[in-house]
């Protein structure tokens, strides 16, 4: 209801006017060839369709303008459109929340989606679902943008021309019958991996129908190595799940478990829980990190060793040697590491001792880029280090289709040999992401029937005979099993916007020949899952988002196969000593493997480490940059066994020497208006033998320059103790170190201080000890508060609009620096400097301590932004939402004003959520309870680093956090009295590995060094 529907249609531009039905063809085409011809050679193109002369166009326009001017004096007529029959449970104006599930490879995430009168506007984690526990990551939060993406594929395409579903249905029936006759010979499906009961059944049914057909999964980035490693150790592919909340000593072997690994949300929440720096107890964990790239997990490490990924295996063998010397008895024969690598041996010794001393609380995890051998050994070590306290759970994947590179390669060989006549590519973009040496486009050229099913008309669609548009997961019925074994149903929140079909529907059609309704298919599967009173439990599953009877498929690991595996000596302990550099591929925190390349929110989200937006430069360490004489933005040519790619570099301190980190997922050519041509297609450097890291790469400086756009440069707060950090030992002896770090004279205000007499006093605490810099807060805020994107050029001019940014600082030496993160939203200063300088009182204080921004008063002087010491105010240089496609307008949160050009904006502490809670408290005649209001950033934060609440209530969580000795305010010496405060970061280094200087807080060290 209440939809705007101006009958006396208003128009804002000639274009909009011209595009209306009645006034078609009036748009001037003055500068087109056609009009030129017409004017100069009348009669040359008589039959060119309705053509309105310039003169008649102008007269029409002037009349319309005059009318529009008159109409402007009246108030616009607005319509209210009530329902004819109101849907049950919908109260117009009151948002509704539905549970659903987002499938993501082998993982899936339980979600709650907010909808306003039938249109989903915001995704949140499902509190009760073990996969998210109410938290989220940037991909989850931004996937709602994909739902409305106007560039999504909207039509069935047949050999490049528009077709429809019924054509495809009859086409597939013919193919289906043909293959029924030959038992599926020459029929193959390459899909993405899944972990879904329904898809599992449908794939089975497909293979039963066509016994000689293939249905395999290929993923450019996957857990295949982990699964193979665990399979080698236990005889079955199982996915390890780590209990970081109970671990005291953690060793990460090239494992970005807080960022890019499977289960990162849960890992981050658990990790933060065991990292709370308690003064009394000894509970704070200690993280050792061995990695080539500088990841966000590396940033959290107490001890970090930069080591090329290829050397991690040797490191592990050396560690096993160290543990053996400490009398850890290993059942299997494991060779000693006979190759010494150049690094501090003391590190291994101390680490081994620390792991051994903390038996039952020590955890080792290895990254998905590491070879299976490493994972097999890690399995063994974890079981030996934790004989009683099982910190690792191994989950069976009974409903999963595991990505299989071997099967993929052999299928590609068959395709090249011409044995495959029908190839179906399900939700996968192989033309873009298959290894370069396979040359996918060339390989499938000879396949007669190529069918592509996907979200975009992408690179693969372009070389297929048929392209079928996929429905978004928020438009489809489906189901999934999370990695910890919880089965859940994905229910649609909206009917398909662009006429796509769901994966389940396509899979059923492949298996049965006929299209079928997704709802029926999923229900049929679930009749087999729900044991009794189906209707009741089915409704409960839809309501809760998951099946509570789900028993995790925990496997009891038995490591007998490991001995046999190790006896075969699978070690690559004589690594490639080919000279040259090492290339390591990482997934993009913005586009994953390229699938999210058209999501502008993610493209504009600064990389957590480099703070680069809209690009994927190669990252190199400081030493390599010195050796090759490279600086940020210099172009290099990377040559990996003949495959050459030119791309720019960015120097990232902390990357292992001799390693070039290459981010995948950019350089798309056929994804949409946002993602096309952004960055560099680094898949061209990837080869099938060594997909994650490769040695012996040649690099040459080309001399070219490239414009990289980075958000950190224009948010520098140099030389001041902004992030305050100390070691645990120092913190114990000086609990108040953070607030004592800055000395200042007594603070007196020049201004009349605001009256803070409200019923509530809002405040926020951000725990820097928990923040992992992932950027979920930024995307959550963008989604909640209708924040526009400005594009690469806009960011280059410093015009990005994020209300909460995460600042990243490096400290220490350039070769082994510390990386620190600090989320900075508006600090809601009580003595706000912005308020003093606004000439029109557009930013004022309210009685509850909020620094309010009144858009309608703002005249855009930008004095406030100039006077803000935190640089958190954002200015609308353009009317960013004006040219927004209709579908994207459906994404806007109706509870937040959409800002126009010339208006300043900034974090409001989610005032719409505060008001919603206050209003319902008022109606119920009570106070707002603690925890009732969650700001969008707080809600999404996977480590719960952000706490918001009423600071006038001494029992509230935020008040308790504010009384933590680590509490300090950013730039408190300016007497701004910010309402947002920070908890200092504490490190827990091993005393055996630190020099005495580490007992002094971070900034003091810097002072000492500089003085």
């Amino acid at each position, binding site marked *: 209801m209440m939809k705007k529907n101006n009958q006396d249609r208003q128009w804002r531009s000639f274009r909009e006017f011209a595009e209306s039905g009645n006034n078609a063809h009036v748009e001037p085409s003055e500068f087109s060839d056609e009009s030129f011809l017409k004017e100069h050679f009348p009669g040359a193109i008589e039959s060119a369709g309705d053509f309105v002369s310039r003169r008649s166009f102008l007269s029409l326009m002037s009349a319309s303008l005059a009318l529009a001017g008159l109409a402007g004096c009246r*108030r616009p007529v*607005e319509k*209210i459109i009530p329902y*004819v029959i109101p849907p049950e449970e919908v*109260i*117009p104006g009151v948002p509704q929340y539905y549970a659903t599930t987002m499938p993501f490879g082998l993982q899936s995430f339980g979600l709650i989606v907010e909808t306003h009168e039938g249109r989903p506007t915001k995704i949140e984690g499902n509190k009760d679902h073990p996969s998210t526990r109410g938290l989220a990551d940037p991909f989850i939060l931004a996937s709602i943008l994909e739902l409305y993406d106007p560039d999504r594929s909207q039509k069935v395409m047949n050999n490049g021309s528009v077709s429809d579903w019924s054509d495809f249905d009859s086409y597939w029936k013919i193919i289906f019958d043909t293959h029924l006759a030959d038992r599926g010979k020459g029929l193959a499906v390459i899909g993405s991996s899944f972990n879904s009961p329904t898809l599992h059944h449908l794939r089975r049914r497909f293979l039963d129908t066509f016994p000689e057909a293939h249905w395999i999964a290929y993923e450019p980035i996957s857990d295949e190595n982990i699964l193979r490693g665990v399979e080698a150790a236990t005889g079955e592919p199982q996915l390890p799940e780590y209990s970081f909340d109970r671990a005291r000593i953690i060793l990460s072997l090239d494992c970005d478990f807080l960022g890019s690994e499977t289960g990162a949300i849960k890992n981050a929440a658990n990790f933060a829980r065991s990292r709370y720096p308690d003064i009394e107890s000894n509970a704070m964990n200690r993280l050792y990190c061995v990695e080539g790239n500088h990841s966000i997990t590396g940033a959290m490490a107490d001890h970090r060793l930069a080591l090329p990924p290829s050397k991690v295996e040797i490191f592990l063998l050396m560690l096993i040697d160290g543990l053996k010397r400490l009398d850890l008895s290993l059942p299997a024969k494991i060779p000693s590491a006979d190759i010494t690598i150049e690094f501090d041996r003391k590190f291994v010794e101390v680490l081994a001792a620390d792991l051994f001393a903390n038996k039952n609380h020590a955890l080792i995890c290895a990254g998905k880029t590491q070879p299976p051998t490493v994972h097999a050994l890690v399995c063994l070590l974890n079981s030996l280090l934790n004989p009683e306290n099982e910190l690792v759970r191994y989950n069976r994947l009974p409903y999963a289709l595991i990505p299989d590179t071997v099967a993929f390669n052999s299928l590609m060989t068959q395709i090249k040999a011409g044995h495959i006549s029908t190839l179906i590519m399900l939700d996968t973009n192989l033309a873009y992401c298959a290894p370069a040496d396979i040359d996918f486009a060339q390989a499938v050229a000879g396949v007669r029937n190529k069918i592509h099913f996907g979200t975009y008309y992408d690179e693969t669609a372009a070389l297929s005979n048929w392209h079928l548009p996929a429905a978004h997961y928020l438009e489809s019925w489906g189901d999934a099993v999370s990695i910890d074994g919880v089965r859940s149903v994905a229910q649609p929140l909206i009917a398909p916007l662009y006429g796509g079909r769901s994966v389940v529907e396509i899979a059923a059609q492949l298996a049965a020949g006929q299209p079928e309704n997704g709802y029926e298919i999923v229900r049929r599967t679930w009749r087999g899952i729900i044991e009794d009173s189906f209707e009741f439990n089915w409704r409960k599953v839809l309501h809760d988002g998951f099946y509570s009877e789900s028993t995790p498929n925990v496997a009891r690991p038995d490591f007998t196969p490991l001995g046999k595996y190790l006896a075969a000596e699978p070690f690559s302990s004589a690594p490639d000593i080919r000279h040259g550099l090492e290339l390591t591929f990482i997934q993009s925190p913005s586009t994953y493997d390229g699938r999210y390349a058209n999501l502008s929110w993610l493209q504009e989200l600064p990389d957590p480490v480099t703070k680069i937006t809209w690009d994927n430069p190669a990252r190199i360490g400081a030493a390599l940059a010195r050796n090759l004489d490279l600086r940020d933005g210099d172009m290099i040519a990377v040559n990996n066994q003949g495959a050459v790619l030119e791309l720019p570099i960015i120097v990232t301190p902390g990357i292992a020497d001799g390693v070039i980190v290459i981010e995948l997922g950019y350089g798309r050519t056929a994804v949409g208006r946002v993602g096309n041509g952004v960055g560099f297609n680094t898949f061209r450097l990837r080869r099938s033998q060594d997909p994650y890291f490769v040695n012996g790469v040649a690099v040459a400086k080309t001399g070219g320059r490239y414009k990289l756009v980075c958000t950190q440069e224009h948010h520098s707060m140099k030389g001041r103790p902004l992030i305050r950090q100390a070691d645990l030992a120092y913190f114990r002896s000086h609990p108040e170190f953070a607030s004592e770090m800055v000395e200042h004279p007594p603070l007196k205000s020049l201004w009349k201080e605001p009256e803070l007499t409200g019923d509530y006093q809002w405040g926020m605490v951000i725990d820097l000890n928990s923040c992992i810099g992932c950027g979920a807060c930024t995307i959550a805020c963008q989604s909640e508060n209708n924040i526009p994107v400005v594009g690469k050029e806009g960011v280059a001019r410093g015009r990005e609009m994020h209300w909460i940014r995460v600042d990243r600082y490096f400290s220490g030496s350039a070769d082994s620096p510390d990386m620190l993160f600090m989320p900075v939203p508006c600090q809601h200063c009580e003595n706000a400097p912005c308020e003093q300088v606004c000439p029109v009182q557009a930013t004022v204080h*309210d009685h509850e301590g*909020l620094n309010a921004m009144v858009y309608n008063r703002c005249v855009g002087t930008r004095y406030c932004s100039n006077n803000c010491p935190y640089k958190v105010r954002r200015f609308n240089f353009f009317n960013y939402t004006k040219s927004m496609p209709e579908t994207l307008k459906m994404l806007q949160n109706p509870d937040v004003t959409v800002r126009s050009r010339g208006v300043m904006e900034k974090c409001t502490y989610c005032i719409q959520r505060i008001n919603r809670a206050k209003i319902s408290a*008022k109606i119920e005649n009570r106070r707002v309870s603690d925890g009732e209001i969650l700001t969008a950033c707080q809600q999404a934060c996977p480590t719960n680093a952000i706490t918001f609440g009423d600071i006038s209530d001494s029992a509230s969580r935020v008040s308790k956090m504010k009384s933590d000795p680590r509490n300090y305010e950013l730039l408190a010496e300016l007497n701004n009295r910010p309402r947002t405060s920070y908890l200092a970061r504490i490190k827990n280094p091993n005393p055996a590995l630190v020099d005495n200087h580490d007992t002094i807080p971070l900034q003091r060290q810097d002072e000492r060094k500089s003085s």
Partner: protein
Amino acid sequence: MAQIFPRWTNKIPLIAALFILFFALTAIAFVWYFGSPRYTDVGYRPQQPIEFSHKLHAGDLGMDCRYCHYNIERSPTANLPPTSVCMNCHGIIGANSEKLIPLRDSWKNNSAIPWVRVHKTPDYAYFNHAVHLSAGIGCQSCHGRIDRMERVMQSQPLSMSWCLACHRNPDPQRRPADKITDMNWKPTVFPNEKLTSESEPKKVNPPTDCTGCHR
């Protein structure tokens, strides 16, 4: 030398100044009054797709407002009745009335009736019906004597100063919870009459900060 201008011309600047002042003041007063919502918006009385009479339904028949606007106590927006609510009665009453052809068309074709909005706050002002009702603000305070209107018109300016006047001193407009929709209730009775069954009237504390309504 004879004077070129007669003596009275000395007064021209003064007269001119007076005229200018007069016109300026007139212009200001003109804009002040005719540009204000009190003039531009009050009395807005658009033609509706169906000549629905509130006077008949709410006045003569005495139907409660909430029979049709049934979400006002739960939602920020006061809902307009869906066609199905109208058809509860008009399936039988006036089943052949010519006036109700658009209603029956809507019911038959499953197409909504495009009512014209009368009361409107700007998009950047977030008004919430539910909380006003719970604070004891009657329909009449903002919408006037709806029960006497054949065709609904705006009776209050709905401007910010008008909102704030009440937010600064809400008590004269408050009434007991069971009199919210009562058009004949006299606001002068308060505060002698108890707002609720409880002995203490509920404290409402309406916001006067910008953040109360603007998000």
